[in-house]
């Protein structure tokens, strides 16, 4: 019910932000070609930008911002499992290169 009565988020503003962030991403991806040793900065920046974009889609397009907190916690749980998956894979990655 709540999601049907709330005021529309400004969808076009979200859209322009997503497009702008994508353009920034394409620019950041070129960084190592111009600045030596910036690969790590590029990776961190790109992951951060992708996370911000994904959050915007989930919060506004998928209306998560307007759902009950208990529901948001419930559907966010797979993200906790994603972190566990990454931690579980780390020893494998560390062992490979040597």
């Amino acid at each position: 019910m709540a999601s049907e009565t709330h005021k529309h988020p400004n969808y076009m503003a979200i859209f322009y932000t997503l497009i702008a962030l994508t353009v920034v991403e394409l620019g950041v991806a070129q960084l190592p070609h111009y600045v030596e040793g910036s690969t790590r900065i590029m990776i961190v920046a790109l992951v951060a930008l992708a996370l911000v974009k994904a959050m915007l889609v989930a919060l506004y397009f998928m209306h998560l911002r307007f759902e009950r907190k208990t529901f948001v916690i419930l559907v966010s749980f797979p993200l906790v499992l994603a972190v566990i998956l990454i931690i579980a894979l780390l020893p494998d990655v560390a062992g490979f290169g040597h």
Partner: protein
Amino acid sequence: MEAAIQSPEMVHRHHPLPQAQPFGVTNGKFAMWLFLGSDGMSFMGLIATYVALRLGNLATWPDPTTILNIPLTALNTFILICSSVTMVKAFAAAQEGNVAGLKKWLAFTMLGGTIFLGIQAYEYYHLIHEGLYPWALIGEFLEKNPGASSLFGATFYACTCFHGCHVLSGVIYLGLTLLFVTRGRWSTSSIEIVGLYWHFVDLVWIVIFTIIYLF
């Protein structure tokens, strides 16, 4: 006062009924979110596999930014984000009871998804023509990248094709929804649920585009 008591929201808040919605969402929406949660974990598995195998084979991993057509894929990303906007416009039209607008925006969303699939098919055609097979590297590709690991092709196609199949399913799902709208059998909730699926596919592409194409 009587109107307030009869409002379903009030009844739910003060006297939870067996059919009450403990999380404030309809059963259909709840089910779609649960599906998206498990589907998201499938994607996480594939993406994590890509990252782990790449980090474990840094020396033989070909440079995706030189192999893949980044401008074309950026255009595809743009098209998918646009189709997310047409989807929210369809939902807004549904909320206003504007059936003509709903049909129009659903059709535009389907068009966006179809263009995305067309571009992806074009991309695959060229990559396979150059010798990037899902199970091996041959021909031109191998000449340009001697000693490259065939794991790149395997994980690249696994991630992007799994996503492409989701877009295809989404276009079919949207088509069926459009058919039901044409027959007058739809609700605002059903439009929101198909929208959730579509935005999820967009969200996953944002992650795949960054991890696989830009690094």
